[in-house]
């Protein structure tokens, strides 16, 4: 059972520690995103890293379009993995859309996480009557086109050749080194689910102790959005870090680590 | 030439029909005598036992085709094989209550059968037969 999950979500476990830290990447990439963060927590935590189904080196065959047409599908996976690993005292770290995934999981099973850290969260990306998500439907359509036209070495004809082709080991090596390579069809579907979703009401249902880490300049999840998230979660703190871009854990790892450590004492 | 009346044999399991045919023949004094059998096997036995005695062998047989134990067709088959031993010509009429053209056709192909008659046989028909017999025997 556990082996099935390990294959499905490419679960990797590092570090020693009685407490667990469960880090989940957001839209677009995979668990490699955390490589500048994890070394700092290895000593005190058992670190659990996964690739969401459809991303990274997860089992593409497990991508069920019906199941993953809502973030609940991913939330169920999170709960399943925690149960299988028999985790206790978990700190969940979710970037971007995974912050919402963690929220849904925590609502479903309140005892699941002791603490929840959100990096660059957004409960809804598309603007609403008096809500500024930052984007219009047109912008999301534009994103879809961009995803479509970027194969990043992934063409439907090439992929089977690349995947496990013994005669062309250099291709496989290329793949190993290329990050954020996701099947464009699945990427588009995941993008739709992420950027067209609305989890604003779920924020109010969250009871877990939460930290929102907000990048000072983030075009995707602006400070306004970060504030909105903090205001709608009862038990939460907001930490604005001096970084630019939507991935402070990549572009400003030190600041991010500092904010995390401060919260986790 | 003294016209002698023929010896008749009726092979039919239908007792009523046996009775009636016998009555017609006797009433009109057409036969020297009448021997009756209820099935082909009995008749065949009689012929075999008496094959040497000409007087015991009938001149005419009225044979019903539908009888238990051994029916008319089977009788003819067996008769054909002992015919030469009997040393007397027997005119065989096949009687049947069936107008099945298959049966009529079948009868016409068998040399031993002189004619095929549908029951019930009328007096006129019987008289005609006996008249014919005078020329045959």
């Amino acid at each position, binding site marked *: 059972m556990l082996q099935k999950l390990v294959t499905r979500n490419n679960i990797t476990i590092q570090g020693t520690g009685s407490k667990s830290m469960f880090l989940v990447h957001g839209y677009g*990439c995979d668990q*490699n995103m955390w490589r500048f963060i994890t070394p700092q927590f290895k000593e005190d935590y058992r670190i659990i890293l996964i690739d969401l189904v459809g991303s990274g080196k997860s089992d593409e065959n497990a991508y069920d379009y019906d199941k993953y047409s809502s973030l609940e599908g991913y939330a169920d996976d999170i709960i399943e993995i925690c149960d299988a690993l028999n985790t206790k005292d978990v700190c969940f770290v979710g970037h971007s859309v995974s912050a919402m995934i963690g929220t849904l999981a925590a609502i479903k099973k309140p005892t699941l996480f002791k603490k929840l850290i959100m990096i660059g969260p957004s409960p809804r990306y598309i603007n609403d009557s008096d809500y500024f998500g930052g984007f219009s439907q047109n912008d999301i359509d534009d994103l879809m086109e961009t995803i479509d036209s*970027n194969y990043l070495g992934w063409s439907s004809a090439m992929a089977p050749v690349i995947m496990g082709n013994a005669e062309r080991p250099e291709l496989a090596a290329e793949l190993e080194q290329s990050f954020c390579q996701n099947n464009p069809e699945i990427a588009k579907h995941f993008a739709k689910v992420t950027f067209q979703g609305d989890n604003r009401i779920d924020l109010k249902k969250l009871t877990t102790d939460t930290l929102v880490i907000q990048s000072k300049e983030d075009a995707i999840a602006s400070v306004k959005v970060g504030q909105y998230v903090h205001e709608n979660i009862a038990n939460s703190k907001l930490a604005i870090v001096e970084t630019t871009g939507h991935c402070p854990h990549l572009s400003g790892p030190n600041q991010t680590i500092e904010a995390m450590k401060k919260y986790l004492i | 030439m003294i016209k002698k009346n023929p010896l008749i044999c009726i092979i039919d399991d*239908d007792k*009523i029909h046996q009775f009636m045919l016998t009555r017609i023949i006797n009433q009109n004094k057409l036969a020297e005598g009448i021997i009756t059998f209820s099935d082909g096997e009995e008749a065949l036995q009689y012929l075999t036992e008496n094959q040497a005695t000409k007087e015991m062998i009938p001149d005419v047989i009225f044979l019903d085709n539908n009888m238990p134990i051994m029916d008319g067709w089977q009788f003819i088959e067996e008769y054909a094989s002992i015919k030469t031993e009997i040393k007397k010509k027997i005119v065989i009429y096949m009687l049947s*209550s069936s107008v099945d053209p298959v049966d009529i056709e079948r009868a016409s192909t068998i040399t031993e059968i002189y004619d095929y008659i549908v029951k*019930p046989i009328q007096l006129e028909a019987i008289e005609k037969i006996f008249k014919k017999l005078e020329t045959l025997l």
Partner: protein
Amino acid sequence: MNYKIDYKELYNTSPSGYFCSLPNGTIVDSNKKFLELTNYAREEVIGKKNFTDFLSLGGKIYFENVYTPALKLSGTIEEINFNFVKKDGTTFPVLVNSVEVKDMEGIHLFTQSAVFNISQRKKYEQELLIAKNKAKDLSNQLQEVNKELLSRAELILKQKLELEEFNQHLESKNRQLSSFAHIASHNLRAPVSNLVALKNFYNEDIGLEDKAMLFSKVELVIEHLNETLNELIESVKIQGNKDIIHDPINFDVVFDKTLAILDTQILISKAVITSNFSEAPTITYPKLYIESIVLNLLSNSLRYSAPGRIARIHFCTEVHNNEILLIAKDNGLGIDLKKHGHKLFGLNNTFHRHPDSKGVGLFMTKTQIESVGGKITVESEVNKGTTFKIILKKNRK
């Protein structure tokens, strides 16, 4: 020969657009081509514009979520397709290659990017995509049509099978009809023709005594006719009763009941009767039929037992190919199948000079068996014995 190469000049006049940005995205240098492509003056860009300023919002999401992490993690990235926004707001498609420039300690100093205008390529790409999609649609349509054809073919096959079944049904009905006609013409005509002859006699000039005698003969014929008619009607009823209720039957129970009914005959004949229904102890079958079949077969075996030896009769059930067989075996007189085989199941046919033999049993038995979809066959040797094999229930798919 020494070539004096001015690298700065080369950089500036390169046919691809270059620009250099800080880790936070601010553009700190660019070449002429880049400015030409984006329609900006140098002072409007250097130090003023960010990489993301040249992207649409949708592109920005892609930039933040895929381009930036990938570049950060592997140090270089190639062939990213963006739509760059010119000064006047119009867009043009580009391919971007970027590389991180780091110092000795590995600190990220600049990002070097090269931009290629792929407007023509993009047009071609879109045409190809349209053609690809059309082909896909066509292929899907063909698959649909194929599916439709296959399902039609299946339907036709199904209908063909149904027709064949119906045909067989009609053939069987036809056989029943012609057998009925045959029976009617043989078995009814005889008594009727007798009645006609008797009537003719009756109307002749005969005395009262003769008339009385004739009339008693008429009575006999009428009885015979009545019996035959009843059997015929009964058989037609059985053949017509396709929906007869099937009851749960236990063979041992039925057999014991039959033994009780034939108690006296069994005692008299001193027959040894055995049974073994263990292979198929039960069946769902019309109760009336199965009792009649067993009674008929057993009474026949008793009636036609060979004098001079002890009658041994055995009834059993067997299962072959999902079919339940009832087998009745005796060591009696046997039947000459060559002589009588074709008449065995006819109406009113007998094969033994036996006071009791009337022959109606097997005709009715066969009718009953066949009306339920079964079959009866016989093996026999004269003076050795007879075995009846009845397939009670055919394998139904």
